[in-house]
């Protein structure tokens, strides 16, 4: 064995050899690494610590840069750790901090090693173990080593002490009770004269305060002193971060810190500190007008800087300011607009966000125009970002900012035609949504959708298919606004619809059906008054129909893109609405029949089913229509009435108006007797299999939207797999049904429909406008000036909103219990309920004499009080008594706020208060004189 180990030692590859070998790549990297791993596995079992440690070092290398598993060496790392040599220890600690995690089994064995090194006289060994502990500490390690950390927090060796401070953070997270032991010493270090030490402590408090700022309010005086006195930028940045979190909790604190922060902002040359000041002001102190003004000036400097970093951060800061001070953005709008064409995509996105913040109902049209022009000339990614932000901004709060819906409908149409547009789903939803919500927009909407439908080129872009399906639905649903139904039917049945997914084709078919029914109905209606024969004897249906068949046959052979051909003898474009001739109807019937003939044999059930329905309907109608005309007036009135009845029936079925569905619609339906809602539905799982059940969320839309989702994902899949793919998905049926009204409740609002609604200015004509940045800027200049509402010539149409809004209820979040226990501990220590400290220290730290520590606490508290006194004095030199009075007043102010916080549903807050009961009781008895002495130290903010 000794021999083998000697050979290993002498001929072992060092780390350098390994790296060199890897770089030479003689046998390829994977092969080389697996060979090296083999060696390492052998070498690491060696009894010689040098060999072992070299193997461990090599393994660390492979693990950290090539992500090889090194957990097999966990125990060997511990063995190397026990070596007396520093070099070995270093390697072992490095390996351990690299590979150990909370679930590592040998973690239990490391405690004593760490303890030994933490108490070592060699400061470098102590540093190493602290470094390692900061990475691997779990609950047990944190608990067991708290005493050692506590000692190190006041060691005279600077480099060790600041590492100990750094470790405290991890120890506190893992083991909150350590706060009761170490917190005072940590706070003491805030007063250290060494800026490094202060920097380390402030760093720890910055992290702690980010989780639960309220607990650290009592330390505000210390932080304030650092803010005013320190000239170290690293420290100042951290202190500013702390104040950014404390200031919103305590208005008087905000008032006190705002001046010093402004001082720093005026004085400093360091951009990082300047930026931190700006951010603190805009985030937490935005109600101080003068400070915000100063911050905006600094932001402006950032925006004008050549450094893209500063520009980006300036935009970021600006978007934070925008929440409360929109003027700041408007002041800088030129730079913001210019940034839209920056080379950096990050800057572009930020400026887009800012532009959207400036949108209001008076300028939404102009801004959208500017942005759409930008979208046209930018790449696909940014183009879609622009479209997404326009869509979401305009639809916010049920189209709150839209006044002119005609304009918006045409904007949606225009968006669909942008070549990079991939927002099909969103546009689809909005087309249907505004159609259902806003009655006045329907004529324009039908017009826009017709434009989309008759353009065969759009069918080629699969991202637009969703939009087309919406357009088809709108055209069918609001066919009464169409000027030329025949054209619609042609568009809906054009051969290139074969490119569509079956689900969307089904919608096309259904829409064609609706249009057909509408035409028949109108036709019958207009002839009701006249005699039956008067229309029938003008026709020669036999000739007509055969002619027509021929012309149509020609049409259907030519499968080219230009399918919108009007048959010779009937020119539908010349037809006025309400003036439908017999030929017109027959042509339409023939066209539909011809187009649906092949579809009745389609592989897709949806298509087949619908096509069959329509064909059946036509059979029923046509035979009678033709017969009656051939017999020239011999037809009995009865038959005609029968046809009229059928058409009437269908028309009624389709003319029922669809409206948006309230989220609470389901709740309003009374529960039928004998329906057990709480029944266990486990059995369903077996039936549904991998489809899964909708979650138990009580949101009634859930089931339908869920189905739709399934449908969507399926359709996405199919796009990839090819268009001719078979599709037997039942979820598509569900989607379709939803579309066709089975799930909708009728809207009982009745508004008058005005057909002669003024048209919005045609957006397409403006498209040719030069998109030079300067021109856009000019345009923007006008548009971003907030205008009076009076400029609108017509009132905003009624937008159907449902009583309790369309918002999705958000489940309340629960705070983490661990954080609670940590902040409990901090509060207990800071607010001085000694009983708790004593009991906990007895259980955890029995080896420490409690008296000694208590003395320290007292001493500390004296310093604390002194400080508070100083701070109060410089504002208001008053006696102790007056301070108490202020304190009492303050409490009265505080309590309603607390109540609010609780009402806001903050569960954590309640729990905290409950668990820190002793302290709460103290507060209630505050007016009792016997308690006054104790009170002074535990009240967080009377010193301000």
């Amino acid at each position: 064995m000794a021999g083998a180990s000697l050979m290993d030692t002498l001929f072992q590859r060092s780390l350098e050899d390994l790296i060199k070998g890897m770089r030479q790549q003689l046998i390829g990297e994977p092969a080389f690494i697996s060979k090296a791993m083999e060696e390492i596995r052998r070498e690491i079992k060696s009894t010689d610590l040098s060999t072992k440690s070299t193997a461990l070092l090599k393994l660390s290398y492979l693990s950290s840069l090539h992500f090889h598993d090194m957990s097999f060496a966990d125990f060997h790392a511990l063995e190397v750790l026990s070596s007396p040599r520093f070099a070995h220890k270093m390697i072992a600690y490095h390996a351990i901090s690299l590979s150990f995690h909370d679930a590592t089994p040998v973690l239990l064995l490391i405690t004593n090693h760490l303890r030994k090194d933490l108490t070592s006289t060699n400061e470098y060994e102590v540093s190493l173990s602290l470094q390692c502990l900061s990475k691997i500490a779990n609950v047990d390690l944190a608990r067991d080593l708290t005493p050692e950390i506590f000692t190190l927090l006041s060691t005279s060796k600077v480099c060790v002490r600041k590492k100990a401070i750094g470790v405290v953070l991890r120890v506190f997270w893992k083991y909150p009770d350590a706060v009761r032991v170490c917190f005072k010493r940590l706070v003491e270090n805030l007063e250290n004269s060494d800026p490094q030490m202060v920097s380390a402590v402030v760093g720890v408090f910055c992290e702690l305060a980010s989780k639960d700022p309220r607990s650290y309010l009592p330390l505000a005086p210390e932080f304030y002193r650092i803010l005013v006195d320190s000239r170290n930028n690293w420290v100042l940045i951290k202190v500013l971060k702390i104040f950014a979190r404390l200031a919103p909790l305590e208005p008087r604190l905000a008032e006190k810190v705002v001046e010093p922060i402004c001082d720093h902002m005026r004085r400093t040359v360091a951009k990082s500190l300047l930026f931190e000041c700006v951010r603190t002001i805009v985030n937490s102190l935005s109600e101080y007008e003068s400070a915000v003004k100063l911050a905006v000036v600094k932001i402006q400097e950032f925006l004008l800087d050549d450094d893209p970093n500063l520009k980006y951060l300036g935009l970021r800061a600006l978007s934070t300011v925008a929440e409360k001070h929109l003027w700041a953005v408007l002041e800088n709008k030129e730079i913001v607009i210019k940034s839209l064409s920056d080379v950096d995509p990050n800057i572009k996105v930020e400026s887009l966000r800012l532009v959207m913040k400036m949108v209001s109902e008076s300028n939404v049209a102009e801004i959208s125009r500017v942005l759409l022009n930008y979208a046209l000339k930018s790449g696909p990614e940014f183009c879609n970002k622009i479209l997404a932000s326009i869509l979401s901004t305009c639809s916010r709060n049920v189209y709150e900012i839209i006044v002119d819906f005609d304009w918006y409908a045409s904007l949606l149409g225009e968006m669909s035609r942008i070549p990079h547009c991939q927002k099909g789903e969103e546009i689809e939803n909005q087309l249907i949504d505004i159609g259902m919500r806003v009655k006045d927009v329907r004529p324009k909407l039908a017009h826009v959708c017709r434009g989309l439908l008759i353009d065969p080129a759009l069918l080629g872009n699969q991202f637009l298919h969703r939009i087309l399906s919406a357009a088809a639905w709108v055209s069918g649903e609001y066919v009464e606004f169409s000027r030329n139904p025949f054209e619609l039917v042609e568009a809906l049945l054009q051969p290139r619809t074969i490119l569509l997914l079956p689900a969307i084709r089904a919608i096309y078919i259904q829409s064609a059906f609706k249009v057909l029914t509408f035409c028949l109905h109108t036709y019958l209606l207009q002839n009701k008054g006249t005699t039956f024969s008067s229309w029938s004897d003008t026709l020669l249906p036999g000739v007509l129909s055969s002619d027509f068949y021929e012309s149509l046959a020609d049409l259907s052979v030519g499968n080219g893109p230009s399918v919108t051909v009007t048959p010779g003898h009937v020119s539908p474009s010349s037809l006025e609405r309400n003036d439908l001739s017999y030929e017109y109807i027959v042509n339409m019937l023939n066209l539909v029949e011809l187009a649906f003939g092949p579809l009745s044999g389609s592989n897709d059930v949806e298509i087949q089913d619908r096509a069959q329905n329509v064909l059946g309907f036509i059979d029923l109608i046509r035979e009678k229509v033709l017969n009656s005309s051939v017999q020239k007036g011999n037809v009995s009135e009865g038959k005609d009435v029968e046809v009229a009845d059928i058409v009437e029936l269908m028309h009624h079925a389709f003319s029922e108006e669809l409206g948006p569905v309230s989220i609470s619609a389901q709740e309003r339906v009374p529960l039928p007797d004998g329906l057990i809602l709480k029944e266990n539905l486990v059995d369903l799982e077996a039936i549904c299999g991998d489809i899964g059940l909708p979650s138990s969320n009580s949101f009634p839309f859930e089931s339908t939207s869920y189905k739709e989702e399934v449908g969507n994902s399926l359709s996405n899949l199919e796009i990839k797999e090819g268009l001719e793919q078979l599709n037997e998905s039942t979820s598509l049926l569900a989607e379709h049904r939803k579309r066709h009204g089975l799930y909708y409740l009728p809207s009982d609002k009745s508004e008058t429909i005005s057909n002669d609604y003024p048209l919005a200015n045609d957006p397409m004509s403006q498209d040719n406008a030069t998109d030079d940045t300067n021109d856009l800027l000019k345009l923007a200049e006008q548009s971003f000036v907030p205008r009076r509402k009076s400029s609108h010539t017509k009132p905003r149409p009624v937008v159907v909103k449902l009583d309790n809004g369309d918002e999705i209820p958000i489940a309340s979040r629960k705070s983490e219990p661990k954080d609670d226990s940590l902040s409990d501990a901090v509060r207990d220590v800071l607010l001085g309920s000694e009983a708790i400290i004593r009991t906990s220290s007895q259980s955890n730290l029995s080896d420490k004499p409690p008296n000694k520590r208590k003395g320290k606490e007292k001493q500390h508290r004296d310093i604390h009080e002194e400080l508070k006194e100083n701070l109060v004095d410089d504002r208001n030199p008053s006696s102790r008594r007056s301070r108490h009075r202020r304190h009492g007043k303050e409490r009265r102010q505080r309590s309603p706020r607390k109540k609010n916080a609780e009402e806001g549903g903050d569960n954590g807050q309640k729990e905290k208060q409950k668990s820190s009961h002793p302290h709460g009781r103290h507060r209630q008895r505050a007016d009792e004189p016997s308690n006054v002495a104790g009170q002074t130290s535990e009240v967080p903010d009377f010193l301000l």
Partner: protein
Amino acid sequence: MIHFVLLISRQGKVRLTKWYSPYSQKERAKVIRELSGVILTRGPKLCNFVDWRGFKVVYKRYASLYFCMCIDQDDNELEILEIIHHYVEILDRYFGSVCELDLIFNFHKAYYILDELLIAGELQESSKKTVARLIAAQDSLVETAKEQANSISNIIAQATK
């Protein structure tokens, strides 16, 4: 706090990784793949910040190496850029005009220096001099240990064990 530190070469080779938040080996590899895809493709005159999974990644290129640090949303990006620069300066001082090869062959040294600079994802030492002094002291401790280990008598003692 800093969640992790990465050094990636322009070719996408990883030169150093240091994780202050828990990530499994699998996640680590994934993070690096994702980030090097984002960062290496960015042009030279763009800003040094990238939004990533709700965090911010601050990166800076020095010669052929990208130094990346991942931080929380409300951390100060400019401060992190200064820390990166600080680290580079210390490396430069230690290796004497540092190059990528130095870091390749002394990868553990780069770690030890980083450990003196940061602890638990926080800056612990902002003085270059102090870091240099601490590293030098550690080096001398290692050297004495190595000399002992490599002495002939030690090897003989091993062999005759």
